[in-house]
């Protein structure tokens, strides 16, 4: 029972962590709570369904299932990254010098817009993602792990590792860290701020797309309103780990997933969605810098 909950929690936590990375990267660079990020994740889930449906229609899925899944994933990533890029250009870039709450309100506007945009174009009812892997799986220390779960855990781990190396080792990753530290200084040493910010949004949105598609596969049902609650949870994960810190977001996501799985199993499943909020409030009140965050004064001032 406990092992089973841990596996379920890890699956969920992996997804939260991937979404949380998008929040934490944007916050690290712009100090903006990108409220629309959860909506990008929702778009990713829809894109997964739409592109997979397209491949089914042209017969690619019956030809090769893995190929069509990979292609769907790639297309969804490109699609969501384009949305992230566009949103930044329209809704956040003009507000870069505005007081800090203006972009937050703008982000809420984007979030509402995207939710209703998807509802109007795709319908208000649940959309179904085909049940691909079935319940097949293997037993692992007394828990039943489906192939899908192991796939999600593996992909999350892979993405987190590659992001870590991207930020730590590549030139653009270095530029991102520089912009996060001091935007003006970074521009003085020749870093193109706009490119870095756009890259951040593109990467974050791509990650959210993967998370969205994995959740669509995991639960099988997708709704236009899933982005809001998932976004809040991922934001909680980011805050839990210390917003702005990439390892923190990974850690926070996994902790949140585990807490939720345990809470749903042992306390009450009705309040499943409330755990995230309670954790969020407690963390913000006790240790606003999060578990991994540097307690820079102005972070919460």
């Amino acid at each position, binding site marked *: 029972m406990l092992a089973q909950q841990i596996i379920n929690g890890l699956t969920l936590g992996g997804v939260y962590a991937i979404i949380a990375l998008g929040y934490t990267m944007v916050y690290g660079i712009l100090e903006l709570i990108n409220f629309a990020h959860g909506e990008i994740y929702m778009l990713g889930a829809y894109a997964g369904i739409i592109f997979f449906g397209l491949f089914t229609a042209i017969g690619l899925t019956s030809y090769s299932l893995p190929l069509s899944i990979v292609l769907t994933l790639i297309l969804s990533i490109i699609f969501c990254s384009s949305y992230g890029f566009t949103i930044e250009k329209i809704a956040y870039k003009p507000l870069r010098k505005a*007081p800090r709450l203006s972009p937050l309100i703008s982000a809420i506007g984007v979030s509402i817009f995207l939710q209703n945009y998807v509802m109007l174009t795709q319908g208000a009812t649940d959309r179904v993602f085909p049940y691909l892997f079935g319940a097949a799986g293997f037993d692992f220390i007394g828990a039943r792990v489906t192939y899908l779960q192991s796939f999600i855990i593996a992909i999350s781990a892979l993405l987190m590792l590659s992001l870590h190396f991207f930020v730590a080792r590549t030139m653009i990753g270095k530029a991102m860290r520089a912009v996060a530290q001091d935007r003006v200084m970074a521009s003085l040493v020749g870093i193109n701020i706009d490119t870095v910010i756009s890259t951040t949004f593109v990467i974050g949105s791509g990650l959210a797309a993967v998370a969205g598609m994995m959740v669509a596969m995991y639960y099988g049902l997708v709704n236009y309103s899933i982005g809001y609650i998932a976004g809040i949870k991922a934001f909680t994960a980011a805050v839990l780990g210390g917003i702005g810190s990439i390892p923190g977001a990974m850690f926070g996501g996994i902790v949140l997933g585990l807490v939720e799985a345990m809470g749903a199993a042992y306390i009450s499943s009705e309040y499943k969605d409330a755990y995230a909020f309670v954790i969020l409030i407690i963390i913000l009140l006790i240790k606003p810098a999060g578990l991994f965050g540097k307690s820079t004064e102005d972070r919460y001032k």
Partner: protein
Amino acid sequence: MAGNELRVTSSKNSIFKARPILVALWFSILFLPFKGAKAALILFVVLSTSIVLSRSLLSYAKSLREKGQAVSNRIRTIKLSTRSLFVARYSLLLILIALPFFVRDYLLDIAILTGIYIILALGLNVVVGFTGLLNLGFVAFYAIGAYTYALLNTALGIGFWPSLPLSVGLTALSGFVLAVPALRLRGDYLAIVTLGFGEIVRLVLNNWDSLTKGPNGISGIEPPYLMGISFWRLSNYYYLILIFALLTIVIIKRVYSSRIGRAWIAIREDEIASSAIGINTPMYKLYAFAFGAFWAGLAGALFAGKMQFVSPESFTFMESVLILCMVILGGLGSIPGVILGAIILVILPEVLREFQLYRMLALGSGLVLLMIFRPRGLFGGKSVSLRS
């Protein structure tokens, strides 16, 4: 050389600088998977023509805007003579009093709703507009007010008037309770904590079945009675709301121009400076939270009495956003602006019934556009800054 340095690039209109065809194509491609090729093609045609049109209109609009700025500045500086102000005010009041004799029940219904939202928006304005603290969970206070009256009435049989002070007091208290810990945070973190508070309240209402009857809500709430007059009749309820709305306006206006109100403005404009001149900033922020919540509690009780039914569905995050929109649309911190914002956002969806589906779509894009082009709202005051 100097001219080169002084050149200011405006990033505001960057979207108009790009090639219109490419922009339209980009949006159409983004739209394509959601609605198919035909709709994307239509969008492409509409977008490219409208961007081309708007570009040519832009220069015209710019000159118009400058002119408009001058006009609105002039409007702002016009000092209405006390007498004409007096006449305008009382004729408006007369119209409002006479309203039930002329209009149908449907319009009266909308008027009642508008009144409730005016009270709510003015309450939120105390927190967001006066004090500059973003509260994204304001609807929680509204819910607490409504549920307190609903429960007192249905479970204990207490009437509207005795339970009104209880529900308003409880709401103000809950504002206080939230504010004590939350006010250590600033800016966006405070906003998120209030959002979390709002969601927790809604989840509790939704899941505490034994007390709140969960998602089914509480029905059979009595409308208020006073000295034999039942406010069940729409026109009577309208007067009740009118009196309370006027009371709200008067009291908030008085508080705004009192020492407390000036302290709030000072905190909004510069917190460090205001604490340096001896304003007890945490205390005044607490007042703002509790005072704002107080009005939400009143609006909640009135709402419960009007609907005779409450359910968690009425108190979602979207409701918080709607109230916030009223405050921002009219102009942060300006009392007439906020009233106008509430009126617009209640009446506009009613007028545009056919476009009901697009209401939230417009609200979302409206928020973005307001933040970019008119962060002070349509009728915003002089210097209102949303600072962190």
